[in-house]
């Protein structure tokens, strides 16, 4: 069984300071890390490999630095790693990413199971999985907490209506995991060194994937720069309980935290 995990890198939030009051973002340390949700996706794949015979392949779209994430995936136990990187794709949106992931999966020779994380970059988005399911004509299960494969059928525990529900889907299937659904394992030191010394990351550009720069034109465009919510100002309320409750609710409504 071949399992492909779609991964990405994100800016480490620990190195970023957001000041709402002066509406600026300070990047104190620009370091990119394995997207946390994608680590959960990889962990689901690795747990499958622990129980059934499976080949795990990590595929990442992004700039050249994304190779680090792929090396980390190799150290964690992936069998192969592919980097989809092209200068023309820097501004690509999720639709373009989905197209290049799908092209890469085809080129690898198809997959029985594709596992993706819930976010794209820093936005809570979860589009990659459903889009891939359409492109690959595969079954789709999102919000997955755990998954097992038995006889060509994937059985997953997913969230639905605030409850966990078990669903089954035939292979090939696309799973989108829920962020924080498991505790990702850590690589050993030797595996990390091995990932850089012995193992290979295959890099493909648009031409290798049979796509053109036209396929990477974004449809959804950001307007203007970063925006910021209204800065929260410290407020102390005291006095009679009923009065305090009234003014607390008033403040919460003003800050748009409460909507009723």
């Amino acid at each position, binding site marked *: 069984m071949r399992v492909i995990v779609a991964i990405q890198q994100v800016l480490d939030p620990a190195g970023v300071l957001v000041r709402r009051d002066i509406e600026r973002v300070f990047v104190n340390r620009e370091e990119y890390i394995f997207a946390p949700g994608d680590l959960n996706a990889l962990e689901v794949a690795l747990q499958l490999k622990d129980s059934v015979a499976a080949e795990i392949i990590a595929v990442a779209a992004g700039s050249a630095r994304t190779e680090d994430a792929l090396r980390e995936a190799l150290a964690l136990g992936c069998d192969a790693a592919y980097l989809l990187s092209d200068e023309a794709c820097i501004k690509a949106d999720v639709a373009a990413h989905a197209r290049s992931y799908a092209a890469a999966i085809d080129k690898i020779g198809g997959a029985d199971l594709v596992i993706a994380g819930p976010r794209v970059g820093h936005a809570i*988005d979860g589009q990659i999985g459903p889009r891939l399911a359409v492109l690959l004509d595969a079954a789709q299960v999102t*919000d997955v907490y755990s998954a097992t494969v038995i006889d060509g059928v994937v059985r997953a*525990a997913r969230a639905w209506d605030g409850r966990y529900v078990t669903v089954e889907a035939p292979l090939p299937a696309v799973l989108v995991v829920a962020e924080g659904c498991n505790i990702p394992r850590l690589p050993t030191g030797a595996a990390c060194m091995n990932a850089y010394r012995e193992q290979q990351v295959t890099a493909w550009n648009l031409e290798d994937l049979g796509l053109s720069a036209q396929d990477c034109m974004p*449809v959804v465009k950001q307007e203007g720069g970063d925006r910021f919510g209204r800065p*929260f100002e410290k407020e102390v309320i005291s006095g009679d309980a009923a009065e305090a409750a009234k003014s607390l609710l008033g403040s919460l409504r003003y800050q748009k935290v409460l909507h009723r």
Partner: protein
Amino acid sequence: MDFSYLDLIPEDEAGAAEDETMGGAGNIWVLGEVKDGDLRPDVLPLVCKARDMADTLSVAVFGVLIGSGIRNAAGELFHYGADRVLLADDPALAEYQPETYTRVLADLISAQQPGIVLALASELGSELVPRLAQKLDTGVVPYCTDLTMDSVSRRLVGTYPVGDAGDILYAAVCEARPQLVTVRPRALSQGFPSPREEAIEEVAVDLDDTQGRITWLGQATVEVPEAWLPEAAVVVAGGRGMEDAEGFALVRQLADVLGGEVAGTRAALEAGWITEERLIGVAGLTVRPYLYIACGISGADHHLYGIQDARFIVAIDSNPDAPLMKHAHIAVVGDARAVVSALIQELSQ
């Protein structure tokens, strides 16, 4: 009155401009979600918002309902301003299947060409809408917390949070038509009713050879905590300041009224008011709600660790010098029990 100036407006030009910007009919659709025959209440703010935008653009608001035995849910959509409801009511759609639902919606959208489709970023919306986008070759502005309509260019600008704590906002526009937008539940405020006459249009459901592939294994649920605490949008926590189990019941009640989850400190755990999976702090869970209300919690460091990602913190305690009162965005000084019961009373009115 002299209306002769109206002749001066070139007719085709006005029509062409409309076509170009809004893709034909260009109405605003709201995708409704039905649970056990009732409309999900989170959908109503979307209808109100759609009504506002439609009035700006002079187009109509359509509600879309998919499922089986869902006719009764349409009434509320009309009450809040939908001009028409498209009803795809078919026994084959009783069970949610990504394939069939996408098929029905994609066919409807291709046939009627709406300009904007709004959906809830719920479990259903956030997996259905990207599928639609892929089928229709358009984009999604995901997980919006605010929507604004640019009435000149007739484009919908969606604002959504990014970053780990969600404190940076991006504003994005979908350049293709229809513009698909998912809105975070509870992000928009509920508007006023704007009743319309009921006009239900039943849509023929033709699934052809499209079949769902998911097997829902009955209603079988796997050891369910009511909701996963770290994901909750509103968390109300209580600590030693609630004094006894009766006091803590108020915390539970407040969480219920706000539609949030209840949690507690180590003191609450030791007193037996909560179980271990509702403990917040170093030894328990880290939560990242939109609103965190701490009732009678002083805020020891190991508790603060668990709430460092909370967007908005309200602390209610009698000691104004407690660490959490210093940390909070709003600190309410007073007897926690009295304030919490006043809050419940105020909110249930």
